[in-house]
């Protein structure tokens, strides 16, 4: 037997924020892919953080080796990598928080 929303529920179902409405499937419909989508989104963040870190690394190496003298470009690449990595880590922390929140749930 499938469990559906309660008919005529007095509590209105939560609707996704309008900014994300196009990206998030409306509640009430099957969401078997929501977790996969979130995982892919997070993976995208990891890939982007990795790309920026690699760029920063290459530029720092070139600067240290004397192949380039682009001081501000290198420093900016390094701080961009730091920002992108912090964003990725913050999202990870939130996901882990959510996981432990459910883990600690009293049954």
């Amino acid at each position, binding site marked *: 037997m499938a469990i559906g929303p309660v008919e005529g529920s007095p509590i209105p179902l939560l609707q996704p924020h309008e900014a994300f409405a196009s990206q998030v499937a409306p509640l009430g419909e099957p969401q078997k892919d929501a977790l996969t989508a979130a995982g892919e989104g997070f993976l995208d963040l990891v890939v982007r953080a990795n790309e920026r870190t690699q760029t920063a690394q290459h530029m720092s190496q070139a600067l240290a080796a004397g192949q380039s003298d682009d001081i*501000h*470009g290198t420093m*900016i690449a390094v*701080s*961009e990598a730091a*920002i*992108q990595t*912090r*964003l990725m880590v*913050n*999202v990870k*922390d*939130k996901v882990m928080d959510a996981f432990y929140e459910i883990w600690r749930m009293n049954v």
Partner: protein
Amino acid sequence: MLGVFSAIDISASGLTAERTRMNTIASNLANAQTTRTAAGGAYKRVDPVFEAIALDKMHALTPSERSVSQVKVTQIVQDQRPGHMVYSPGHPDANKDGYLEYPNVNVVEEMVNMISASRAYEAGISSVEATQKMASSALDLGRV
């Protein structure tokens, strides 16, 4: 979409442009007494030409964001003002009347340009720092 990284990229383009301007000023000051060039005649002072360039495609701008642009030095032009003539008949580069043409570089003018370039560079650094701080405080929102 305009974001944190596009703001930093725009500031970085300004820093690069000011660095190029600093190079032209260094060239002008270094050659303030140069009377011989490959093209013949005295050195002519150079000036960078700044041009507003649209952000690259990877930023996926909406039509209203198109006017936000980076800056780029697209040309370095020679100043064609005549240099000052000094009577020094003993100099090998002097003309047949004994006058020697010195570059059209005015050291005081170059110093003013240098102050302007270094202040503009500092302004660019400040704008990068402000953007970093904004991103940093936005990331602190995640902490509860």
